[in-house]
């Protein structure tokens, strides 16, 4: 949709698309459908050669005389299956577990020079406090967001996003060969933080508040979890005209 607005205002555009069925409906001017999992628009992290193949193919669409152009990138990346591992004995306390992972997290940040942690604005050295906040939220207690423009649930969601980012980066440092689904499987099945965060999710999902239920869906979902938004959709609520 963005591409259409840009093109209509006199710019030439080319886009990477991750969902062919939607792109067929939206009809942007030039799209390269890349059959890669969501989150991997350029295909492979730390593989400049592969990323350049994607970009070269995308930019070649600029030379087409007429459109719309929707072409498929020839290489497909199917989401990796994460092995389901038996639950081992978990550390008893998520906050203790977080402290134990700090050394790996700090090394990841030192190696990469960046971190995805930061949405709450709470420094990671203070994350034990965020863990306690989430535990209170999971237990049904009221919590307060630090600023009035954020709801408590949205703040809890950012806290989950930050802590997950911390755990994921610590794990990537410890096991560099693991892919995203494998890291997720570890987080949800073998850590103490995973089940605690799942209880945060459960409280949100049972809230009866559509917005809070949607926030929960971004935290965790089983493969057979229906999108919570579906129960709020009626045939007339599904708009296909973008309006």
């Amino acid at each position, binding site marked *: 949709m963005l591409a259409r607005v840009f093109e209509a205002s006199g710019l030439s555009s080319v886009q990477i698309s991750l969902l062919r069925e939607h792109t067929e409906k*939206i009809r942007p001017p030039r799209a390269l459908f890349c059959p890669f999992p969501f989150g991997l628009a350029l295909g492979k992290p730390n593989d*400049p050669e592969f990323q350049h193949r994607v970009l070269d193919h995308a930019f070649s669409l600029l030379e087409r005389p007429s459109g719309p152009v929707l072409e498929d990138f020839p290489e497909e990346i199917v989401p990796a299956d994460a092995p389901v591992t038996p639950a081992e004995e978990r550390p008893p306390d998520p906050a203790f577990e977080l402290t134990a992972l700090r050394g790996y997290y700090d090394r990841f940040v030192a190696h990469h020079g*960046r971190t995805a942690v930061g949405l709450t604005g709470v420094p990671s050295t203070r994350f034990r406090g965020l863990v306690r906040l989430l535990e209170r939220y999971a237990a049904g207690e009221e919590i307060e967001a630090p600023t009035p423009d954020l709801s408590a649930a949205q703040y809890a969601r950012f806290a989950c996003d930050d802590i997950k980012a911390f755990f994921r980066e610590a794990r990537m440092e410890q096991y560099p060969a693991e*892919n995203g689904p494998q890291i997720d499987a570890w987080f949800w099945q073998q850590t103490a933080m995973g089940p605690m965060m799942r209880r945060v999710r459960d409280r949100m999902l049972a809230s009866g508040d559509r917005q809070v239920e949607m926030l929960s869906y971004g935290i965790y979902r089983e493969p057979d979890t229906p999108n919570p938004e579906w129960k709020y959709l009626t045939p007339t609520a599904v708009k296909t005209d973008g309006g």
Partner: protein
Amino acid sequence: MPHLKHLPDMKRNEMLTFPAQVNHDTPWTPPARPLREARLALVTSAGLHRRGDPPFVSNHHEPDYSYRRLPADTPAAEILQSHASAGFDRSGIQRDLNTTYPVDRLRELLMRGAIGSLADSFYSFMGALRNVARLEQETAPAVAELLRQDGVEVVLLTPT
């Protein structure tokens, strides 16, 4: 997303029922000159912003149709992603920003002479919006105008 045949039914249904615009025509602006002479900007719907910028917050009452400006020379360490759903694999962008936002690749293409120049500013929007009306009518045209003021001729768009 890979071809939908690889997905479990629930996931496939979610993809197919997510509201997408249906259009019957396509605006078309042919590039005025080859890419090696053109000025290019990167625009992403990955919900990226500078550390310290307000995060994107979407809800069903009001999808977050705002945008953030990202100076093209923003260091990777200063870029955060507040589109952080379990619906996609975040390990890629955590390992390498270029997985979603290929600034280093674009700089390499610039050095090779494959791109004429890069814009001073790139832009980011929130992804997975269920209603794009205000984006289409207000913020996307505003960004288009900013891009044209920057002399941009070609835009590369990336999702997450």
